[in-house]
């Protein structure tokens, strides 16, 4: 696992996510004063969840309305059936760091 600098606190909007252009991309969300990092691509169809609809700690994909819990990645509404990847977030002053798995070449 490697901690990478994802963004600053100010870069994360109130009502949507910030997309970190890693491979695969990661979306960082703010829920009150907590921050969460999850896989950015909806597991049902290709769409950036950073552009999704944020409601509490739930994000909804605006294409087909799949919903995911930002804390656990769990699917809360179909059509998605595969949970989102979740990543640990660490805050250091105004900077947010995300713990991403080491990229392996066999994937």
């Amino acid at each position, binding site marked *: 696992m490697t901690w990478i600098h994802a963004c600053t606190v100010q870069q994360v909007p109130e009502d*949507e996510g910030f997309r970190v252009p890693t491979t695969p991309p990661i979306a960082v969300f703010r829920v009150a004063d907590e921050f969460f990092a999850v896989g950015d691509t909806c597991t049902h169809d*290709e*769409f950036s969840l950073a*552009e999704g*609809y944020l409601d509490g700690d739930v994000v909804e994909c*605006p*294409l*087909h*309305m799949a919903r995911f819990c930002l804390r656990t990645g769990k699917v809360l509404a*179909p*059509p998605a*059936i595969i949970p989102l990847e979740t990543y640990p977030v660490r805050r250091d002053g105004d900077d947010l760091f995300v713990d991403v798995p080491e990229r392996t070449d066999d994937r």
Partner: protein
Amino acid sequence: MPENHARVVVVGASLAGVHTVRALRAREYAGEIVLVGAEPGAPNGVAVDRPALSKGYLTDPDPSAAPLLSPTELADLDVRLVRGPAVDLDLGTRHVVLHEGRLVEFSALVVATGSTPRTLPGVEPRQGVHTLRTLADATDIRAACTPGSRVVVIGGGFIGAETAWSARALGCTVTVVEMLPTMMQRGVGPVLGEAFTRRYAAAGIDLRMGTGVAGIEGSDRAEAVRLTDGSRLAADVVVLGLGTRPETSWLNGAGLDLRDGVVCDERLAARGARDVFAVGDVVRWRNPRYGEDTRVEHFTNAVETAGVVATNLTGGDQWHDALPYVWSDQLDSRLQVFGRIRPQDELHVVQGDLDGSFVAISGGDGALQGAVGFGAVRQLMPYRRLLASGASWDEARALADGGLKLPRFRSQVGL
């Protein structure tokens, strides 16, 4: 009190049927589940996700499409998949009759047999004339649409328009014939329909609007389409995009109320029967949102009805009153419609313009009735919330003019 159903039988293994079995297990239904599959051309009778079949599956250089249920998921869900079709229903003894005469007993039945493409009355099926519903249909169309071939799409609705665009992307010469004066009129109304018609024409598709089909020429394969205005279109490939009819033929005479679908109450329970429900394209239900009987042939409705029925089968009591939603890919961008666009309603473009990305809202009877976005996924979202909250038409327009917080247009990244 939750009723304990020992065995739920779901007939039809496509979007609505598959989501029903998933939703049952998600709600901790512990009884037996039998899923009857009969998708033509599918080895295990389970359909693939259909929306891609008129879009990426036709145009991607190396397309793939997997059945909606994998063997692993079937095992995880503990679902017994049996081969249909179902040919009859005995409500007295609570049996579904399968094609070989085999009987499957149920304590609750979910009808998920969807819909079947309409064909042209009086036109015999023949080589070169296609409908588009199954993976096999899409594979045939894809193979037939070789560069330079002349494709005539009959019907300019969502799927007809998508298919025409895909065929053009494959290098074909494409004509769309539509009875109504514009493309997609039923889906988006005349004003937006007119805008899309203009844009498709500008993109090089030959459009024959307000014209019917008199016949298809050719003895063993289609050679031309004759139109009611007297013109003749030479054709190598003809695709019928005429909409669908609910697949209830196997239920004829079983005692259910069948009138353009399985007629159900607000909870999606079939009228005149006990423990029989219907989901997806096949259900005509009393929609509490509009106070009328409705049938919807779109993806999200299939998923939502499955959830409602699973809830009602596991002791819940839920009505199906969700805000209607459909998306479609048009002209390399994404069209989304929330609510309903009725011919009598007013329409306002509230963001962008009809030659580019836009959001339009429609209203009537004092209420906001529908919202349409094109290439504007995020911009449309506040209007969806307004619709869901039952906003009045004046409120919606006032908000659009000023008060409403609207997200900015992002740089367009394809779909």
